[in-house]
Structures are given as C-alpha cells and as structure tokens.
C-alpha cells in the first residue's frame, strides 16, 4: 500500500494566489493556450497520461458513436441543444487544464437545461450519458433562475473516451443538488471540469460518485456571484484494481460571507488502485466572513492500493468565521478482520460493516433516496466482487 498526505495552510500577502500559480498555464477556453503536458507538472503529476487515450495531446478525435445523451426532465424545464456561439456558454468559469480546454475547443454542440425562476421541481432532472465505445467532447450547462429549486442526476455508464465540462449557474436564492455518477465500464476514460457559479444566497450541493472507468479525473470547482452563497461538495469513490480516480477540487471564496463544506470519502481495493484527491480552498482578501471546511478520508481495504490526498487552504484575510481542513487514510487489515471475526462476525459481513460504516454518514447527506439506495447496492456489489 502507498499513501501520501500533504496538507498546507498558506497565508498569502500578495494578490497572486499559489493555487493559480501552481498551474502551468492561466485558465483559457482555447486548447492552444496550454502546452501538451509531459507528466511532471503539478496538476498532472499523479495522472497516468499514457492512459488518457490522447485526450491531453490533441490526438483523440471525436467519433460518430461517442456517447448518447438522454435527458428526462419534468414539466417546466427547458431542454435545448445549442451551437458553440450561444451566449449562455462559458459563464461559470474557464477551463483550467489542457483536457478541459480541449473539450471546450472541440465540442460540436452543447446542452442547455434551464429551470425558470421560482420554479420548484418535485422530480429530478435525469441526464443519462451512455458511452457507445467511441470518443466524444461535450459541454453541458444547467441553469437555475432566481429562487428555483432542482435536483439533477447525471449518470455516466457504458464505455467511452470522454472529455466533458459541465456548468452550473445558480440565480439568487436558487437551490441546486446535482449528483454526478461515474458508473462506467472498465475501459472508459472520463476527464472534465464541473464549474459552479453560486448566486447571492443560493445553495449548491454537488455529489460526485465515482465507481467505474479506467481513468476518471474530475475538477469540481465553485465560485460565488454574490454574498450569502453556500456550497456543499460531497464525493464518494470506490477505487478497484488498476483504476485511477482523481478528484481535484477548488472552492474560490471570491466574495464575502459565503460558506463551503467539502467532504470526500473513498475506499480502495486491489493492486494498483489509485485515488487522488486535491482539495484547494482559496479565501480571497475581499472574502470576509467566509466559513469553510474540507475533509478527505480514505479507507484502504487491501495491499497494493495507493492514495494521494492533498488538502490546501489559502487564506488572504483574517476576517473570517472559520477555515479548516483534514485528511486521513486508514487501512483495513488482517488484524481488524480477525478482531471482528473473533466476535462472531463472518468475513463478508465484517468487510461490509467497515465499508458501510465508513460511507454511511456521507450517503445519508445526499438527500436523493433512489440514489442513496443505488449507492449502497453498488457498494455491496463492489464488496462481493472483492471477496469472491
């Protein structure tokens, strides 16, 4: 087993943030603004570039049968497919690395889902993204008008090489819960950036669930458009033998009096299972009254797995309510198994107990019952596979 945990709290006096300067190029919509990564850059050093199937170096060409997208939306929701020049695209943030910029530069059409102001949905919007075995670039915008409320579930299944960005634009007082499930087949590669722009007094809850795929690398990012905004970023991953699952988060407290809470938990099992978690929180000088906490926990179930967990909190003002971070990687080993079995608990139940207990608190916070049930069932399935 390998494990590294590095944490940092930096108090920066200058306007130049190290979160920004650690990147090899400034954010841009144009892929040409990013050099082809060679793997030693800070933002690529954990990622197996050779397994990205050319998404990072311009050699991956979109195919006819890439992914199929099906949207199921309750009444009152507008679902559109728009051209690249649509003015509603690109408002929530620019791509921060070469693959996100590649996706933005290469998509042919974008999806735009709009929940009009003051519309409160009682049923979720469901977006099914099914990989058809090809390569695809995609872009999706989900916008909630002022005081609108919605739950959106984005479900990724099948096999694909996909670079895709998602934007969440929340109007004032809007409430959005979005669940992105990466339940890919074993060979899939999925890289993308999720940008949320949280309006004044709006609440954004993101749940990122990663089970499948060969390589999954996501950038969930949050910025605020006005004071009083809240962001909760929850993540759950189950990294199996040979899988690379990487979640790189940024919460940019760029306006005063906003809150953020980040909790990511992962279980790993099998040789060369590799999970990477980067949690950047930036509290800008003008963001007085910020309240933020971020946490990453990992549970290593077998030998041969590796975790890299790097929380990074950067504070440019002392006028805040609270700021903290935590990261820990624990191990489920033979002695723990013996202890539980010595109390009469069969091996499969012992593993189940440990993993369920580990994830339970997080699963309960999702607030979408059918997703919670599916997650628990999926966790069971992963465990059965490991014991068999």
């Amino acid at each position: 087993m390998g494990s590294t945990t590095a944490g940092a709290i930096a108090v920066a006096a200058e306007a130049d943030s190290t979160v920004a300067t650690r990147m090899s190029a400034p954010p841009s919509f144009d892929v040409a603004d990013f050099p082809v990564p060679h793997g030693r850059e800070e933002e690529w050093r954990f990622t197996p570039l050779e397994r990205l199937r050319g998404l990072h170096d311009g050699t991956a060409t979109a195919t006819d049968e890439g992914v199929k997208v099906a949207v199921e939306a309750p009444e009152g929701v507008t679902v559109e497919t728009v051209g690249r020049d649509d003015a509603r695209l690109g408002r929530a943030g620019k791509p921060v690395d070469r693959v996100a910029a590649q996706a933005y530069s290469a998509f042919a059409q974008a999806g735009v889902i709009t929940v009009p102001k003051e519309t409160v949905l009682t049923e979720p919007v469901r977006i099914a993204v099914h990989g058809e075995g090809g390569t695809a670039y995609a872009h999706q915008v989900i916008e909630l008008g002022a005081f609108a409320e919605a739950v959106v579930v984005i479900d990724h299944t099948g096999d694909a090489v996909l670079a895709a960005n998602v934007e969440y634009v929340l109007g004032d007082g809007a409430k959005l819960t979005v669940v992105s499930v990466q339940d890919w087949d074993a060979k899939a590669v999925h890289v993308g950036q999720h940008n949320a722009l949280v309006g004044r007094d709006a609440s954004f809850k993101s749940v990122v669930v990663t089970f499948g795929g060969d390589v999954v690398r996501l950038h969930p990012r949050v910025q605020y458009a006005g004071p009083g905004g809240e962001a909760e970023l929850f993540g759950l991953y189950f990294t199996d033998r040979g899988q690379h699952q990487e979640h790189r988060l940024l919460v940019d407290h760029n306006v005063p009096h906003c809150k953020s809470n980040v909790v990511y938990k992962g279980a790993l099992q099998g040789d060369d299972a590799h999970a990477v978690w980067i949690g950047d929180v930036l509290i800008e000088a003008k963001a007085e009254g910020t309240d933020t906490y971020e946490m990453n926990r990992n549970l290593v179930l077998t030998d041969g797995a590796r975790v890299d967990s790097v929380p990074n909190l950067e504070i440019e003002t002392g006028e805040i309510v609270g700021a903290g971070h935590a990261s820990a990687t624990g191990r489920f080993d033979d002695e723990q198994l013996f202890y539980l079995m010595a109390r009469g608990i069969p091996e499969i139940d012992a593993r189940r107990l440990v993993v369920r207990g580990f994830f339970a608190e997080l699963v309960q916070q999702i607030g979408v019952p059918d997703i919670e049930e599916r997650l628990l069932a999926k966790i069971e399935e992963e465990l059965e596979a490991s014991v068999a």
Partner: protein
Amino acid sequence: MATLEIRDLHVTVEADNATKEILKGVDLTVKQGETHAIMGPNGSGKSTLAYSLAGHPKYTITGGTVTLDGEDVLEMSVDERARAGLFLAMQYPVEVPGVSVSNFLRTSATAVRGEAPKLRTWVKEVKEAMQRLNMDPAFAERNVNEGFSGGEKKRHEILQLELLKPKMAILDETDSGLDVDALRVVSEGVNRVRETGEVGTLLITHYTRILRYIKPDHVHVFAAGRIAESGGPELADKLEAEGYEAYTKGGASE
C-alpha cells in the same frame, strides 16, 4: 455442561524465516463455571495459547486437539469459534475505522445469538452494561477502539464479554496496563459474568494482582510452552512470594 478440552496442543509460528515451536504439548480442561488462572513469565507462550484457541491466522497448529463440548474447535473458522461460544478478550484490542461501537456490538450480538436482538431491549441492555462498567454513553458513538485509552479498551472488551455471554472466556492479560480503579471495575465485570455459573474462564496473566479481585479455582504455571505445574489458589501465593524463577532457569528452552 460446556467443557473445553485441550490435548497435547503444539503450535508453531513463522518468525525471521524460521519456524519456531511455541506451544509444546498443552493439556488443559476447563468446565463451565470454573475459573482457571494461567500464569507465566513473558515469552512462555501464554498469549499464543489464547490466540491459537481463537484461531488467529499467524499461528499454525502442528499437533493435538481442542474440543468444545466434543466439537472440533480447530476445524472451525475464527467467526465459527466465536459463534460456538468461545470469547477472547484481547490484550491489544484493534482499532476498526468507520465502525461505531454501537453498530459493532449489535452486529456481533446478532451473529453470536443467531438473530438480531430486539431493538428496545437491546438499547437498554447495552446502556445498563455500560453503566456497570462506568462507561460514558457517548462511548457508543465512537469508532471501535479508535483513540481509546488502555483502560477504555479493556472495559470495551469486558462489555462485549457481558453482552455476548460466551461458554468459554479467555482473558488475555486483561489486567495489563490498568490502574487499580480500572482493574477493579474490569474485575467486577468479569465476576458478574462468572457468577452466572455459565461461563468457563481462562484468565491469562503475568501478575498475581488481578487474582485479588478474581478468585481462581485452579492455577497453572505456564513455562516453556507447556503447563509446568497445576494447583489450587495457593499456587498463586507461592508465585507471589517466589516469582517464576524456579520455572525459568535451566528447564526453559527460550
């Protein structure tokens, strides 16, 4: 009446690329309701006996038999032994991340009893058992053994003993690392279980101190991988006065 019979038990362990025999023919019979103290110097194999009986994978049984009510214990997996009525209170209880004490106790009781205890009576049962051991109710929400002090770990072991009601309880150096107050609380817990008359107790200890609180029916001196001498409680007094020297010099192979 439940009986644990150990006959000519030989156990080896792999260490430094070599196989080392630790138990060299242990014979012992423990009946329900009896308390046997096993005393011996460090390295005599006392803990190996405890862990071998519970089925720890580190130890290899190379000879002999162990039966509980005639059933072959050595054929059973670790969890089967526990469900058959064997309980090992460990010297170094293991931390289990992500599992709360309350969840652990209920899962364990469900496995051992063969059915989930009724929630209402169960909550009361746990609460009362914890009170008797002077345990803070908040304890139930902590993760198993995570961040527990030495005394808390031992109380938690005895709490399990009280709740699981085994036929045979093996207490492996339960007294080590306890101050006098904690030792008394833990001993009282053991005595409550003993007073039911339904448990056979194998009390493994280095010190005679715990025997002031838990009175054994039989005392065995363990040395060099086997029982060197057996007697009544008076044997403990002799050890208190003379130490283990008579058993370690010359005859010991380690």
